């Protein structure tokens, strides 16, 4: 199993541009998550999904959108990039609610200038 894969690894955007961060897992996990990691701030939940067709907001959803059309894929969309969205983005998945650990992708480092 490849686990959780994310593309791209790095990206530089200009203010106002849009992009999609891709996330795919091959473990047949129902639960998927998007986090952002800022220095000294830990991880903040952006959006999550409990299954195909179901998504919900996390702590910091503003400026982002998600969709979940399949179990495997959970893309994160930035519509109008702002410097405040400069961060490292991690996708994660887990099999069951609560007691199971989350599996993380390698991350996407995004810079908005």
């Amino acid at each position, binding site marked *: 199993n490849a686990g959780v894969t994310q593309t791209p690894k790095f990206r530089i955007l200009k203010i106002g541009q849009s992009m999609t961060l891709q996330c795919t897992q091959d473990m047949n996990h129902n639960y998927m998550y998007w*986090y952002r990691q800022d220095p000294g701030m*830990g*991880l903040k*939940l952006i959006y*999550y999904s*409990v299954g195909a067709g179901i998504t*919900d907001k996390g702590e910091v959803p503003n400026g982002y959108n998600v969709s979940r059309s399949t179990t495997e894929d959970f893309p994160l969309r930035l519509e109008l990039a702002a410097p405040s969205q400069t961060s490292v983005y991690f996708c994660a998945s887990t099999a069951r609610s*609560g*007691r199971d650990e989350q599996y993380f992708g390698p*991350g996407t480092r995004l810079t908005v200038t």
Partner: protein
Amino acid sequence: AQSVAQPEDQVNVAEGNPLTVKCTYSVSGNPYLFWYVQYPNRGLQFLLKYITGDNLVKGSYGFEAEFNKSQTSFHLKKPSALVSDSALYFCAVRGRSYNTDKLIFGTGTRLQVFP
């Protein structure tokens, strides 16, 4: 509301010495508790978790953690540190009373093991 505190931004320890990375939490009811490690330019990797049962939990790479309900703590420990243990460590908590699977992460503690 759920919260996690990691009071130390950095912990320094000499190789071969025991290490402790501290974590305290606040949730309603009994918690699920997790430790993750992050190496440079990598995603988080699961180390260990407390769900129920024995308060001393053993995990990967020789790490262990002790759940202390009265002190609402879940400190990460290792009897003998290695230079290769140097990384960023995150504690995370989820309360059982919540219907959704959202982990709350601490801000992380950087462990530096010196030769």
